Structure formats: structure tokens, C-alpha cells
């Protein structure tokens, strides 16, 4: 067996247990001159090394219960009754009941059951007479225990210190005495500890300062970024390396930029309050050039055959997508007419009941390409490359419908863990009405980041990302099969 290396705490514990073989943790800490925490750790180490054993023993204590405390001088009710009968001879039951009050019933039951007294009824009155004194035990069952408790001012006293059958007779009665069991851990040395060198002195040469390098140690607390933010950063990084510049914008937008500029009809169901968060703030205008507003207003009338109301477009909403941000950048930034690859990452909002797959507020990423020669095939190529870099190599595209892109597709990626195709980003070319005034058709795609993070972290309830459960935040790890 290799030389056992012991920490000074372990040595102190062994020394103490050699002088007193079985000790509780509290006692051990005191006797070894350690703090409670040191003693606890030391015992754990020793146990791990097979040098100490921990056994648990139960200790029962009894004390007077609620009803026990009400007894005069801790005297049993049947003793009170017998005393009265022995002193005063046979008596009318009503007289005794009046004298004893609520204790009478229990006392009467016991003395009758044991044959210590008898009742005779005649002419409507009941008389109780007592048995000869030799038939009544000098110490009634339970009396010894009760006396011990009275001597200890009601307890608690150790259950072992009284006669078990005597105690049992008391425990049968409602709340006369109570019994509480506590478990205490006792530490003792194992056989293997017998030959261990626990001397605190110099020990043997170079080994004196050595420690047990194989021992378990507590985990060091770590700081970390939120797992969702890690995915967001990764996505940001991929976009930048693919030549995209990040833009940011307001969370609160006039309807005009969130809906009207994207040609969402003013009576479209998605604009209703049950789907979109409207804010109780005064409108701040459309925030757009008059020529653009005129163009959009006309496009609405022509496409949807209905009036377009500027007041409706001024209402303020929590953005329902980040398209308002990328679009505003394309149409309003000073270099709007230049070729551009831009992307935006940010929170978006839907007035939905939250569930394991829906949040009222989530993070969306959106990319747009405004350059000559942009095609759907090129858009699909960027998607494939994006997913490949995220570690999602199996991608396919299905046609779909979005109100402001034409044509529109959605990308599906295969997830090994779930064994199925999962819908990720939507994509398409902005409708010409939306990007009128720009030089080229504009490719756009985007979607929720949480869905990707769910695949990456094997999370099945999207609410986990905003629950701030420290246990999860500290431990969450990426899966390889995302």
C-alpha cells in the first residue's frame, strides 16, 4: 500500500478518535480543535480513504405533551380518582365528576376497566365504590415515567431512561407525552486506520509537506456568459466573417415601419392587439420621408383595394420582427444606395401566451443582401454556409408564404437528436413595393435564435433561456449532436 498522505485536519481527527473512539461531529470538532466545517470536510476525506466510518444512531426523547402539562402535579387522573375513593369511601358519581372536571371521564374508564372500582345504580343515582386496596397496584402503569418527567420539569428526558412498557402505556393516551426521535451521526475509525501515522510532528523527510493530490476538491465558481448569448455571439461572428455589417435599431417602432412599409394590410389579423403589443404612448410620427410615405400609401391602395390611414400607421408597437431595423437602415442610412450586406440581432415581441415552444419576447436575427446579381440560389448558398458554420450540415428548402417577400422559402435543418427536420429561418426577396428606390432586389432571411440555441443545448422548453435558473446557467453544456 502506498504511503497514505494525511492533511493536518485528518491527523487531528484521527488523534481525537484514538482517545475517544466514537464521537458525534459536534463533539469531534470540539475535541480535535477544529471548526465544524473543517471537521465535516476532514471526516469526508477520511471516509473517502476508508479510514473513518460514519454510523447513524437514533435517539428518542420524551417530554410532557399538551394534555400531560394540564395534569395537576403531573398526577394521573385515575390516581386522583382512586385517592378520593380511598379517602372518602363510596360516592355519588355526579359529586366525583364535579370535583374532577374534564379529567373524570378518562379516569373512570381506566379504573373500571382494571376492576379498581365498581358502580351500582339505584333510584336514578349511580354510586361508585372502590376495590380493596390490595387489589390496586401501589404504582399505577405510567406513573413512574410521569414522575421522572415531572422531576425534569416536563422533559425532555431520554426514552431509554424509563421502563419501555411503562412508557408505552402513556404513549397510548392522547398527547399525554410526546416522543421525538433524532438521528445523530457518530464517527469512528475503521480497521485500516489503526496503522496510519497521524503524528503531527516532522513526519518522514520530504513527505512532510505533501498533500493528497488525488483528493476531491470543491468546484471553483465560474463566471460565464448566458448560453443563449454564446449562441448569439457565434451567429454574430459568422455573419461578420461572411462579410456582413451589424446594424441595430429601436425596439419601439411606429406601425408604419413594423407593418405598413412591409405592405401588411391595415386590417391584417397579425396587426390586431391579440398578436401585437401596442404601447400606451403618444405617437411620434411616421419617421419617414414624405415621398416614401406617399409610395407606401399608394401601394396599399393598389394592392389591397382599401384606404390607407396614416393615423393607424403612427401607433407605436414593440417590434414584431427585426425587418423594420434592416429596412430602415437600407432606406434611411446615408449610404443607403450602396451595395450592402447587413444583419441585425435583437429582441422582438409577440402578444402570445408563453409555452414550451412560444415566448412573448425572443431574439431574432435577420440578414439582408443588397447587391447586383443577387439570386434565390445565392440566398440558399448563404443559408447553407451559415448553417454549416453553426454545425448544422443537413439543410433543405421548402416554399412558404411570407407577406413581404416574393418568392419565399423556409430552411429546414435535420436534427439527429430529435430525428426530424426542424424549421429554422424564413427567407426570400423583398417585394418590390417594399424596396422601391433601391438599386437592386434585396435578399432577406431571418428567424428566432432560441430555436438554434435549443438544438445546441438540447433544451426542449424555450422558457429555460429566460428563467435565470442558476443551476442550469452554471452547468449547461453544448451537445455534439445539435
Amino acid at each position, binding site marked *: 500500500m502506498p504511503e497514505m498522505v494525511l492533511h493536518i485536519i485528518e491527523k487531528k481527527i484521527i488523534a481525537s478518535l484514538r482517545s475517544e473512539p466514537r464521537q458525534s461531529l459536534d463533539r469531534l470538532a470540539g475535541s480535535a480543535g477544529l471548526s465544524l466545517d473543517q471537521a465535516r470536510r476532514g471526516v469526508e476525506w477520511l471516509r473517502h480513504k476508508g479510514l473513518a466510518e460514519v454510523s447513524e444512531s437514533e435517539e428518542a426523547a420524551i417530554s410532557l405533551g399538551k394534555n400531560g402539562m394540564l395534569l395537576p402535579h403531573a398526577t394521573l387522573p385515575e390516581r386522583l380518582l382512586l385517592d378520593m375513593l380511598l379517602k372518602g369511601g363510596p360516592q355519588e358519581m355526579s359529586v366525583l365528576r364535579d370535583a374532577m372536571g374534564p379529567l373524570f371521564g378518562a379516569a373512570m374508564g381506566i379504573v373500571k376497566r382494571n376492576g379498581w372500582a365498581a358502580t351500582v345504580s339505584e333510584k336514578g343515582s349511580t354510586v361508585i365504590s372502590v376495590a380493596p386496596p390490595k387489589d390496586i397496584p401501589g404504582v399505577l402503569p405510567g406513573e413512574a415515567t410521569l414522575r421522572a418527567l415531572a422531576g425534569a420539569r416536563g422533559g425532555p428526558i431520554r426514552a431509554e431512561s424509563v421502563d419501555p412498557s411503562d412508557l408505552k402505556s402513556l404513549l397510548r393516551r392522547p398527547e399525554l407525552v410526546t416522543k421525538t426521535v433524532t438521528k445523530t451521526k457518530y464517527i469512528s475509525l475503521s480497521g485500516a486506520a489503526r496503522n496510519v501515522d497521524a503524528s503531527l510532528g516532522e513526519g518522514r523527510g520530504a513527505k512532510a509537506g505533501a498533500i493528497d493530490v488525488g483528493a476531491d476538491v470543491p468546484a471553483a465558481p465560474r463566471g460565464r456568459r448566458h448560453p443563449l448569448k454564446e449562441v448569439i455571439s457565434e451567429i454574430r461572428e459568422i455573419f461578420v466573417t461572411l462579410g456582413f455589417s451589424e446594424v441595430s435599431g429601436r425596439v419601439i417602432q411606429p406601425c408604419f415601419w413594423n407593418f405598413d412599409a412591409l405592405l401588411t394590410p391595415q386590417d391584417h389579423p397579425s396587426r390586431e392587439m391579440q398578436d401585437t403589443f401596442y404601447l400606451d404612448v403618444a405617437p411620434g410620427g411616421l419617421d419617414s420621408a414624405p415621398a416614401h410615405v406617399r409610395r407606401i400609401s399608394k401601394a396599399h391602395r393598389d394592392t389591397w383595394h382599401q384606404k390607407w390611414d396614416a393615423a393607424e400607421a403612427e401607433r407605436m408597437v414593440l417590434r414584431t420582427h427585426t425587418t423594420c431595423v434592416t429596412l430602415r437602415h437600407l432606406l434611411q442610412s446615408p449610404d443607403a444606395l450602396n451595395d450592402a450586406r447587413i444583419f441585425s440581432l435583437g429582441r422582438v415581441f409577440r402578444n402570445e401566451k408563453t409555452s414550451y415552444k412560444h415566448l412573448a419576447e425572443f431574439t431574432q436575427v435577420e440578414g439582408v443582401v443588397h447587391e447586383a446579381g443577387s439570386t434565390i*440560389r445565392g440566398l440558399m448558398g448563404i443559408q447553407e454556409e451559415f448553417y454549416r458554420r453553426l454545425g448544422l450540415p443537413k439543410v433543405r428548402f421548402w416554399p412558404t408564404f411570407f407577406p413581404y417577400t416574393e418568392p419565399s422559402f423556409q430552411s429546414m435543418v435535420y436534427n439527429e437528436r430529435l430525428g426530424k427536420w426542424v424549421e429554422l429561418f424564413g427567407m426570400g426577396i423583398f417585394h418590390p413595393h417594399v424596396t422601391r428606390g433601391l438599386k437592386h432586389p434585396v435578399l432577406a432571411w431571418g428567424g428566432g435564435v432560441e430555436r438554434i440555441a435549443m438544438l445546441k443545448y438540447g433544451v426542449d422548453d424555450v422558457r429555460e433561456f429566460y428563467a435565470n435558473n442558476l443551476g442550469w446557467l452554471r452547468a449547461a453544456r453544448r451537445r455534439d449532436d445539435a
Partner: protein
Amino acid sequence: MPVVELSYERLAWLVSRGSSSSSTRVSRDEISEKLPYLGLDIESDDGDAVRIEYSPNRPDYATDVGVSLALQGLLGVSKGLVPLDAGPAPSGPDRIVARRAVAGVRPVITGIMARGGALDDHMLRQLVALQEDLHLGLGRGRRKVAIGLHDASKISGGFPLTYTAVPSNHRFVPLNETKEMTVSQIIKGTKAGRAYGHLVAGHERFPVILDGGGNTVSLPPIINSAMTAVTTDTTDIFVDATGVSRHAAEDALAVVAVTLRAAGFSLGRIGIGGGRNRTPPLETRTIPVSVGRANEMLGLGLSVSDAASCLERCRLQPVPQDGGGGSGGGGSQNGVDGVIPCLVPPYRPDIVSEVDLVEEIALGYGTWRIRPVLSPSKTFGAYDAASVTYDAIDMVMVGMGYVEALNPGLSNARILYEMADRPTPTRSRMISAVDSKSREHSVLRDSILPGLVENLSRNIHEEYPQKLYETGTVFLKAGRREAGSGKRPADASPVSERMHVAAIAAHAGSGFSEAKSVLQTALGAVISDASEIRTAPALHHMFADGRCAKVSVIAPRAAGDNRARGRRRVIGYAGEIDPAILSAYRIRVPAAGFEVSLPGLPPAAA
């Protein structure tokens, strides 16, 4: 998005029915593979039953007959237009006359006859589903359009029908009832009445369709009469569509018409007049599409005839062009810039302009055949300034052992004010969302720290020390003097959005010194001179009195400001969290932290 359950067996039968050769029989696998390429998401797939989700812009996918028309095209079983064969508009007198009385209430009516068909339970259920779908989408909850289906043989008083308005004491037996009821009783006493009565409320008279004998056929948009109920014995159906928009009514009617036609009915026009109403033309319209434009957008090299064939597979009809070089595959050279005039049937109101036809070409081509191509970027990527700042904060906070929390920006008054012991701002200051579906998400946060304290309360069983931080946007109504900023933000928006960072540490030894020390190090990552950070005694609702400081820095000078140094401004607070707040949350260890707005940054862009 609407979902419909279909049977593979029935779909296969419906698809094959369109084939000229009786031997063509498509398999279940072929169908299941192609459905997604029509834009139909397979939700679940269990034996013969398949549940598909379709886009609200394609109500013609609400029934299996509608889906089968599209499948026929994509599988090449049957291509080009689905003929409606509704016959010529009758030249005789109008068979439905709208009276002036409906003009102010619900002016539009249109309709069509479908004869000689047979309905089984399944088809009947599908028609009801289609109707409901049209009511929700195109019909905007029956306001714009409501559809009625009637057993034509049960219209006892016969044609002509009158579309007029009657007072609320008008009586008839509504569908699913056995006794006559007045219009007011129907509106108050039936489910449909309660759901849709509001659409015609506020008028003294209510729109009804009466038959030649004065019997009530329908009380649109609420309910039909029991008299004309459609059952599995029905062979002739009268379809009405009423509403406020003729466009929408005719579009919805066309979707029902093509569905009934595909289900085996033959269509017949009904003459309609009165007011601005007309016999529905149910005509195809011609929209031109440039094949060059389509190729440019899709990245394909289709010839005119290729593109034409793609359109046919989407049940559209390219018009053959006189002497066009595009006929036959060999004509591709001439055809690349060719323009195809394309006939679009009336049940496809979703096709409005050229780009919609480009999408149809992609669909008809087969999305699975479009190969992605990656072209190198001509631009260099860059990070947003805000991201760079947040990243710097992340690095330093994580380095100090802090775990990042993420709380919603749309929080609630309980967390933001009540539990944080902050006074509830007056209504004019608090930014609330109107009619939120969950109380949890109802007020925009104006501060991050209250959320972090709440987070601690959810983690009292986790190991201490607990150290949390969060960066993000907070929202302040414009005009509010944010701590230290001293002026109304210059932008037009009624709400100012600001970047904040907040942190909190909870453990037995936490206190003001730790909070200040962490704050100094954090800010050191984003400002040039951390020695300029000052803390002065202050009072704040969230912090214990005497253990709270306001934090100030030297603000960077604005452009054109020639002073030697910028002005000092307060950017937030640091301190020990008020024990009363912690105890209300049952947090048993002391906590200290800070929240500041991030200085030295350009304001958020639009």
C-alpha cells in the same frame, strides 16, 4: 396557420382522377414527398392520415380536392388551368336583386349555383372548414365577407332572391333551431348571434336574403335559415357571399366555386343586380411575367418554354404567343428575355404582380431542384458599436466570476416596482403594453436591477456566493429626466431606449465595497479613465440608507465642444440592497450591486 387533416388514400384517388390514362396511380410516398414543395408543412403523418399546415393566403388548400388540383400539377398528372365552366352570364332578368336598404349596412352580394354533385360526410365537413377559413382570412372575421351554402332545392319560394334589410322583429327558423325566432332573439340567444351580431349592430335594419316567396334564406353574416340546410342528400348548392368589399366577396366565391367544381359539381352563373352589384365574372386575368426577370431573381437559366411549363404545373396558363421563338426547348436563346402573358384563375387572388408569378415558376420548377450557390462577399463585415461595448462588459464581468442573466424587456409592475420597493410611476411615466395576454409581460422595464433581485429569489436553494449581471435595453418615456442626462433626448420617438449594465452579488460577505469595486473594474473596460469614477452619498429606494451612492463619470465631449473636459454626469447607483426587499423575497443573505447606463456611446440609431 390553419391545419387540415387529409387522407393519403383519398388524395391519391383524387390526383389520379385527373389523369388521362387510367393506369396512372400516384403512391403515398410520392404525395408525402411533394406536399412540402407545394408550401404545405406536414405537421404529423400517421398511417393514412396526414395533417398539413397551409398558408392563410391559399384557402383553396383547405380541402383535399383543392390540394389534389395542385398535386396534379406538380406531379405532371394534369397541368394548366382548372376550368370553371360556369357558362355565360345569363341574359335574362336578375335572379338576385339587392335593395337600397342594404347599402349602408352590408352592400355587397354575389353568388353562384353548383349543380349535380354528391356530398359525403367527409366532403361536407371539409366545405364547412373551407367556409370557416375564408371567414377568418379573406373575410376578416366575416366582416369583409361571409359565405353561405344552401340546398337550392329547398329554397321553397324559388328565385329570384332579394337581398334587403328588415327590422329586428323579422322572424324565421335559423339553422340548428326548430322554432321561429326574431332577429333580436337570434343575436342575443344563439352562439352565432353573439359571435357575429356586432358586425351588423348599430343599424335599425338587418340584411337578409329572401326567396321568391318571401321566405328567409339567410341572415348574413350571422346565420342561414334552417330551411336551406345542406346535407349529404344535397345535390344542388346555392352559394352566396355577402360583405363590404366586392373584391373580397368575389375572391372568396371563386375559391368555393373551384372547390365545388373539383368535387364534381357543375357551376352555373346567376344574374345579380341592384346597387353596385354584378354577376360575378369569375374570369381569369392576364399578368405578364418576364422570363429574364424570373431567371435573374432565381438564378436559373430557363427558356420561355421551360418557364411556361413551370407555370402550367402551378395550374396557371401561359398564353401562347404568335410567332414567338419560345416554343420548344430549342427556342431558349430567343426566349430568355421573353415575356409570358399568364392567365391567372379567379381563385388565386394571392397572385397580384410579376414577382408572384416568379414564385410560381420556382414552385413549378421544383424547389428541390434549385441548387444553392455560394458567391464570395464583396463587402467586409463589421460589428455594431453597441455589440463591441456589450462584449467588453461581458469579458470583464465573466472574468470577475459573474454569471450572465437574461430577463425580458417587457416585464411587470410587480417585479419592477412593488417587490423592488420603487414607487410606481404615474401612468404617464410607465410604459405599458395594451391588452397583454400575460400579466407577466405587461410593463417595459426602466431598470435592470429589480429583475436581478427577483432572479436571486428563484435561486435561494443554489450554492452561494451568487453573482449575476445583465446588460440590455431599458425604456424611458421621452421628456423624463433620466438620472443625470439632464435633457430630453433629441430623437423624435416618444420613448428613449438606453443601454444599461447591472450586477448583483449575494453572499454572507457582500457589501458596498464589493459593489463599488466591481463597478470600477467593469466601467474600466469601456471608459478611458476609470479613476474619474466617483461615488457620492445618495438615497435610492432599492438600496439601504447610508449604504448607497450615486455614480458619476466625466461625459465625453460632444463634437464642437471646446471645453477642456466634458461635464460630470450621474450614470446610476451602487449600494447594498435594502434588507426589506431581500426579506420580502425570502433571500437570507445580504446582497449588493449597481446599475448604470453605459457612458461614452453614440445614441441608438433609428
